[in-house]
């Protein structure tokens, strides 16, 4: 089951440039929340702060409170490694490990955590690949083909399977379909629909139609600030803020 995410006054910097200003929002469990906004508005930065990937960048800093269920992500004594294990991430450009087979790719996160039991691994790998709608296409080549030998859309689903294998509470997706063709994109969108039932999904997208198709809630970011956060339907039909309306109608961005 998914969990909720409470963000309180999150600020983030790249060196001296402040990328996020006082972001506060509650993300509901078992729903998909889309983050939209023009380039440079901080949507990727926001999502990367949720699983503490932001700070892997040199000179990057974040302050504020992020609670994922019972875990205080930025709390004292909380290791980023623990956070990232419980929050999965799928990146814009599919990045399977090229030197590993499909099987090894999916089980990578599990093996890192000391899971060695072959039988259990087999079960989880199959389950993850099914959840990512990739099982039927690769089930005969699990150990023979390398992760990089698949098509772009398949690679991205492989990355989703890899993220799901460790059974995270939350799945973060940073423009997961922007590097893919339309058919793969629609497959990924269908996937998100199904994943919602078991996970909390936060998806960054620059494609407003995608947000409308996939997410129940949408947050509009502009220049590092959260402008509006509401049900997707409301944002796209009767936005409360004029800036949201301008963006939606294409007046800028």
């Amino acid at each position: 089951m998914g969990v909720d995410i409470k963000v309180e006054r999150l600020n983030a910097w790249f060196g001296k440039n402040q990328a996020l200003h006082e972001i506060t929002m509650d993300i509901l469990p078992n729903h998909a929340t889309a983050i939209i906004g023009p380039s440079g508005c901080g949507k990727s930065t926001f999502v990367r702060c949720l699983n503490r990937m932001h700070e892997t960048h040199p000179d990057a800093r974040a302050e504020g409170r992020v609670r994922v269920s019972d875990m205080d992500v930025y709390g004292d004594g909380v290791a980023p490694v623990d956070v990232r294990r419980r929050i999965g991430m799928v990146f814009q450009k599919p990045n399977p490990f090229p030197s590993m087979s499909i099987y090894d790719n999916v089980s990578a996160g599990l093996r890192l955590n000391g899971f060695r039991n072959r039988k259990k691994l087999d079960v989880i790998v199959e389950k993850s690949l099914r959840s990512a709608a990739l099982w039927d296409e690769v089930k005969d080549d699990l150990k023979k083909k390398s992760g990089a030998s698949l098509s772009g859309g398949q690679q991205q689903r492989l990355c989703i399977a890899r993220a799901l294998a460790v059974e995270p509470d939350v799945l973060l997706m940073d423009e997961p379909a922007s590097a893919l063709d339309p058919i793969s994109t629609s497959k990924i969108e269908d996937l998100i629909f199904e994943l919602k039932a078991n996970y909390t999904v936060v998806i960054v997208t620059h494609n407003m139609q995608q947000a409308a198709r996939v997410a129940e809630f949408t947050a509009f970011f502009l220049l590092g600030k959260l402008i509006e956060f509401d049900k997707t339907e409301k944002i796209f039909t009767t936005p409360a803020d004029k800036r949201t309306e301008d963006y939606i109608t294409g007046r800028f961005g």
Partner: protein
Amino acid sequence: MSEIVPALQWHRRVTDKLATAIAVACVLLVMLPLAAIFAYLVFRGIGALNLAFFTQIPRPVGETGGGMANAIVGSIVILLIGSLIGVPLGVGSGVYLSEYSRGQFGRLVRFTADVLNGVPSIVIGIAVYALLVLRQKHFSALSGGVALEIMMIPTITRSTEEMLRLVPSSIREAALGLGIPQWRSTLSITLRTAMSGIVTGVMLAFARVSGETAPLLFTAFGNQFWSTRLDQPIAALPLQIFVYAISPFEEWHRLAWGGALVLIVLIVLTSASVRWVASRGFVEGSR
């Protein structure tokens, strides 16, 4: 649900810290001989450096004093001979590879230059010996210069090519667009723009080659006396260091350390000044 994966085990954390510790240890271990070598060079070498060292030739065995003046001059002579042939050939090849070559021949030349780079210097010495020394029936400064020049060429070729490639094609197109013939544009504009980078490459080649001993063993051969004649054996700093180091005489050991200090200072100064020039944004013309 997340109980399926246990929280970060203690031993993973320890492995992570251990890996860092081992990496740091490796760095320290590698820095150790570096520090030791420089320390000894200064410590043992500085005592040998006096006016006599830079102005006199070695005294006969058993006498104290004397210097390595002939070796220092000899090295300069050989380097000059080498660069007279090596620099034009190297820069010319670099120009060809960057401006004119397409396809197979260029790839072959590049590959061969890399191959030549990896050939042991003593093998080059043998080849030059067979070509020049055997025919002339004596060792000579000229053959030493030829051996060094062979070693310089791959470095100069590759660095010239890379510097020229950095010159934006818009500059070349501007020149051609003005109706300037290609040879003129290459010489006066492209080459001129990349000049400081090319000079950098040449000086680095110098620094690398000035310390080479093996190719000089049977070409320049070494000389205990003053000589700058091209057709006679000539002393060279690294060669002299070698001969003195393996000799049984205390006095010569002292001179060897002095010579080594002089050599390393020259090399480090050359590389450092080259790096300093490079860091100031060397390809100054290509704005």
